[in-house]
């Protein structure tokens, strides 16, 4: 099946490592031209070099998405440099934590606001595309109780509501908006690698909750993103696609 991503212009946030990096690599492999960002200049430069070495058409920028002005400027400049935007994947997250009330502000500003700001900044380009697609990265933590009542979980839930309602709002412009909720994803340098080292019991309990006994990989998540972002998924909008290897237990019928 050809996904139809060849020549499409995609923008991905938080993409030098883990899921974000895998998304860029998958989109590049499908023939898309990709702009991406991360906070560290060195890591962006490394990723650009590595992706270009594989023949990818990529541009990278160092930006802190929490800084609304700088982030918007980067999005606009990247869309101009790519010559438009057909696909937007807001992927950056502040991650979990229950240190203080600041976690709520941080997850709100980074997980929620960066997604909203990105959709608003790029919506004109997405509308112009005719096959515009937004894939918002949520989490299974939004739909089932996980670990602790963290801001992360609640803010990821806000993104699913936002994705649905935005999809209704922009549907008439042929822009599709979906949420994707991965279950636990393990990769080198990722949160689960650290949890495995620092909290073995929790890691083991999480692994036991996955029927086939293995975590997801960034590549597996990236393939779902590529599909949802592609014209091949033309019928799917407003959905929350759960890609969790059976980690969640609820029946949603």
């Amino acid at each position, binding site marked *: 099946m050809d996904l139809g991503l060849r020549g499409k212009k995609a923008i991905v946030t938080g993409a030098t*490592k*883990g899921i974000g990096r895998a998304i860029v690599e998958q989109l590049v492999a499908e023939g898309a031209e990709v702009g991406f960002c991360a906070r560290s200049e060195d890591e962006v430069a490394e990723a650009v070099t590595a992706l270009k070495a594989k023949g990818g058409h990529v541009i990278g920028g160092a930006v802190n998405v929490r800084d609304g002005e700088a982030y918007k400027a980067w999005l606009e400049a990247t869309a101009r440099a790519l010559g438009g935007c057909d696909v937007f994947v807001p992927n950056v997250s502040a991650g*979990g*934590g229950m240190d203080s009330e600041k976690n709520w502000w941080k997850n709100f500003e980074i997980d929620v606001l960066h997604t909203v700001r990105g959709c608003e900044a790029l919506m004109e380009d997405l509308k112009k595309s005719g096959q515009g697609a937004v894939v918002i990265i949520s989490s299974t933590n939004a739909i089932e109780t996980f670990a602790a009542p963290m801001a992360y979980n609640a803010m990821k839930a806000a993104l699913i509501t936002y994705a649905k309602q935005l999809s209704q709002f922009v549907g008439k412009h042929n822009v599709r908006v979906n949420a994707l909720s991965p279950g636990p994803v393990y990769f080198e*340098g990722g949160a689960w*690698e650290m949890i495995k080292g*620092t909290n073995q019991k929790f890691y083991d309990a999480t692994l036991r909750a996955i029927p086939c006994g293995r975590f997801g990989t960034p590549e597996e998540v990236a393939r779902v993103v590529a599909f949802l972002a592609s014209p091949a998924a033309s019928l799917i909008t407003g959905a929350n696609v759960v890609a969790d290897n059976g980690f969640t237990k609820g029946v949603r019928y």
Partner: protein
Amino acid sequence: MDRDKRSKLIEGSRTPAYKKVRRVAPGESPVTPVEQTPDPELGHAVIPKERYTSADFMRLEWERLWTKVWLLGGCEQDLREPGDFICTDIGRESVLIVRQRDGALRAFYNVCQHRGNRLRPEGTGSTESFKCQYHHWDYDLDGSFRRIPDLDTFPQGAPPCDGIAQLPCEAWGGFVWFSLDRGIGPLADYLAPVNAHLEPYHFHKMALTRDVTVEWDCNWKASVDAFNESYHVQGIHPQLMWYLHDLDIQIDTYGRHNRYLIPFGTLSPRVRKPNTIPDPIKVIMKAAGMDPADYDGPIENIRRDVQRWKRAHGAAQGKDYSRLNDDQLTDDYHYLIFPNVTLNTHADDLMLFRQRPHPTDPDRMYYDIWTFELVPDGKEWPERPRHQHFVHGDKSIGLVLDQDSQNLPGVQKGMHSAGFRGLWLGAQELRIRHFHKVIDDYVYGPGGRPEGAP
């Protein structure tokens, strides 16, 4: 091993490359020296395993080491008032340390001169006198006879010793020390230079928060060894790789004592940098009053930023860090006071271990854990915790120490194996080699360990 296999082994076992952490320069440390001492030439020989298992060696240790050194007896905070006392056992001996009516400290053998009964069990307390429970021979706080019931029925009179025999006893650093060697020199000379190093921590302002004794099935030296290197972090404490730098360790030796300086609040080069602050590092930040959720810098800056934060906010928190250097605000300055006191010193707390030999069995020991927390100026001194004594495995002593203690009985069993020659130590374990060299000095004297001796 064939060449191909050997080269594969070397290639697959390399230490990861790492960037050195920033450390304070000698001029930036007000009191505690930070200059690295030259590594002593201690060779690379195997440390004989027999010294961990041999009853003969245990006897030599008793005659030439335990009875020739200064020993940690207890905390001065347990001896505030006249009549307060500490009773502590070492090997087959037991010692009473008593606050005198004139404020002085005295130590005595804990033994009644009548029939040899122990006057008190181990522990702390307060008393008017030490009355033996057997026939009520009673001793004053200064050890002299106070009352001997029916003394007139002893034709030979009272023993000529005038009471229980006194032992050298001195206080330093909020701790009381004694020696079973009546001819030993001053405590300060014995501890030097470590006593001067530790002065700026203000141990006397730290309250005892935990007082635990665990019986371990290993020789006391196996336990000392376990805390004298950080090489085992990647082995049995994987969680600490998201907490401390286990490779950039400065090792210093000072006569009979030694130390290493471990950077805390930073990542081991053995792990990849995560996207979020590791929970163990958050603990350090929160203890300093920082909010990890409010920290926007990269993880590699946290150690430095915690130092700056504590420097800026310490005084307002009632904590006097003025005589500590910046690294002491985050790092573990880890000292071994020979032979058996391990001090994990930190600006706000102290975790002290005391390893004591079993009276008769080289395969067993007592592991004392005393933790202390700095009481900020103006804050109330917390109540003393109850002393707990249990056998290894009966209760948890915390994740990290559980990991250490679960390992040690296996180590001790291995010492008895015909398939094991002795300790094969690397450069990261230099403190262990130094410790055993000092043991040799005590046990074998200036000639050193004779060939083939344990």
